[in-house]
């Protein structure tokens, strides 16, 4: 109880009566003309108000709790010399600053803003341009990264960094950010209990969002468009993916969502539109797919390797070149009650469920897996005839892979 009171005093009392007095103004023509000096002069919990202007600084360290508040037009230019802002204390807020020209290094991951072993940080309304790494959270839990804009100009994977990176950081909220033109838009490694919501991640070289060894995370309402690949979730457990949009992730290795060694995930209410592969599933088990929309993808779902007890229910599969593709004859997954735009069966008893089961795997998808050039024969009469005969008597495709209750009307 005593300690709680102490913490309470520690945080609230100073800000209570030093808020106005405890403000340090920084501007190019002021007495305090650099941010470093401003931070030096500021007391614990003070606000450093950065006026409009360009500050040529780097390696700025924040070692006490305070707020860095930038006016519109307040720019820190690192001149490509190294890392810019390093936060080493709890309860630091960075708000409204623009940071430019982070140095690129092949040995150190220089970031525009790095948070190291600190908690209760808040990074918001920050704009990052021409960067290497953007916001790098290192062993820092319980923070918030909100409404930032990160615009990189990455050209090659080997010398570019990630927009927002979480490394051994738990309980972080990443919300409302816009990330584009970096390697991975948002990258999580050993980051658990993280919420990623309402971000837009686009035109990134590799992934829009990338999970490695991270468990119990949730991402929702994000848009991933035009990335090398949309979202990669690898070696992680209990990830909930809901209400996201994966669009136009095009290319030979491109997909909307990649699941590699993922167990017990939930994928619900997402939209996969015009991706080369909607979801690429590799060795993932007990994943539940419901209420998703797969629209005009090359392959809506591509299943590779051993995947067990996954279930696909109540999804819409609309005008995909291939709905489902398998590379083995084995099937342990359930398809039930989905809408398939290619379904040609009938519903005589008018219960809204087709009377004939639907076979979502075409023989042609096997042939294309084997000889990729054959893709050029897509939708040819010859292929349709072959597919039809395979549908009548399956030889190459798993014969238990059917949706026994295909619905007649698409779900809204």
């Amino acid at each position: 109880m005593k300690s709680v009171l102490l913490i309470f005093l520690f945080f609230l009392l100073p800000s209570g009566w030093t808020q106005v007095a405890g403000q340090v103004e920084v501007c190019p023509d002021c007495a305090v003309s650099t941010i470093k000096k401003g931070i030096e002069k500021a007391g614990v919990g003070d606000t450093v108000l950065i006026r409009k202007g360009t500050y040529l600084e780097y390696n700025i360290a924040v070692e006490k709790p305070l707020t860095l508040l930038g006016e519109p037009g307040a720019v820190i230019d690192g001149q490509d010399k190294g890392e810019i802002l390093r936060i080493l204390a709890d309860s630091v807020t960075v708000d409204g600053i623009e940071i430019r020209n982070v140095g690129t290094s092949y040995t150190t991951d220089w970031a525009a803003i790095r948070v190291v072993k600190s908690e209760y940080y808040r990074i918001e309304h920050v704009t990052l341009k021409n960067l290497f790494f953007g916001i790098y959270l290192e062993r820092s839990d319980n923070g918030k990264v909100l409404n930032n804009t990160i615009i990189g100009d990455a050209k090659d994977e080997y010398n570019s960094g990630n927009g927002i990176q979480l490394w051994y950081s738990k309980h972080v909220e990443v919300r409302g950010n816009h990330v584009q033109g970096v390697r991975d838009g948002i990258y999580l490694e050993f980051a658990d209990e993280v919420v990623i919501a309402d971000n837009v991640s686009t035109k990134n070289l590799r992934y829009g969002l990338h999970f490695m060894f991270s468990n119990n995370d949730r991402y929702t309402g994000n848009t991933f468009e035009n990335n090398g690949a949309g979202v990669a979730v690898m070696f992680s457990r209990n990830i909930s993916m809901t209400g996201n949009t994966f669009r136009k992730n095009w290319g030979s290795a491109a997909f909307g969502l990649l699941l590699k060694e993922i167990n017990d995930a939930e994928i619900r209410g997402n939209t996969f539109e015009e991706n080369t592969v909607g979801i690429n599933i590799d060795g993932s088990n007990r994943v539940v797919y419901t209420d998703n929309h797969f629209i005009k993808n090359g392959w809506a779902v591509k299943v590779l390797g051993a995947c067990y007890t996954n279930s696909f229910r109540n999804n819409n599969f609309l005008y995909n070149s291939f709905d489902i593709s398998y590379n083995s004859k084995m099937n342990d997954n359930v398809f039930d009650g989905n809408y398939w735009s290619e379904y040609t069966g009938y519903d005589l008893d008018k219960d809204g469920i087709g009377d004939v089961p639907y076979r979502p795997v075409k023989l042609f998808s096997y042939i294309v897996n084997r000889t990729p050039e054959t893709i050029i024969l897509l939708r040819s009469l010859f292929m349709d005839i072959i597919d039809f005969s395979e549908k009548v008597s399956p030889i190459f495709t798993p014969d238990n892979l059917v949706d026994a209750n295909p619905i007649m009307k698409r779900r809204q």
Partner: protein
Amino acid sequence: MLKILKYSFYDLMRSRWSYVYFLFYLMLGFVLLFLNNDVSKAVITLMNIIIVLVPLIGTIFGIMYCYNSKEFTELLLAQPIPRRSIFLGQYLGVASSLTFSLIFGLGIPFVLYGLFMSDAIFDFSLLLVTGAFLTLIFTALAFNIAISNENRIMGFGYAVLLWLFMAVIYDGLFLISLVIFEEYPLDNFSIAATLLNPVDLSRTLILLKLDISALLGYTGAVFKQFFGTNAGLVISAVMLLLWTIFPVWRMVYVAKRKDF
């Protein structure tokens, strides 16, 4: 030539088959749109129909017209009209009446449905343009067959065989060769093989719009160049044009040297 075209066209426009063809497309359009209520799905179904049915109808119609108008042709040959005009005129008459039926038969239901408000208009126009090209090509091929074969039964046989080959057998052989030689780089081969068959060519042209996501999944650089840029569209269009011009040219060439 324009006069011959005019008379052939009027003649065909009055024939029962033009109506049947027109009504067929009209009904197809209405059924697809108003029973389905889904433009995207309708466009996909239409594509299948266009690349299979349009060549068949063009071939059969063309060959039928040639044989049935033999006497008419001879009547014209005795008139002071150059042969080129007679044959080009008849060809254009048949091809344009078929194209007319196709475009209006499918166009009317789509326009009534409110196509101009939909973003599928580009896909749809591409379909119609491709269909028109296929009509031009296969009618010209049929005229070639008819002009080189006096025997109607043989001519019909060749025409049906031609269609069967272009629409089905060619792709079968294509697939088999791709699978057999899968260890070799096959980019150039596949694209060349596609360009050499107008049915495949048209299909690819439409695929570039409908299934671009899947086409870009393939790693080959040539493919990527072909599908990923406008190059594919331009090359395909030029090839379709060549496919139209060459048979027409040969038809005129043979007709000029033929005895009637």
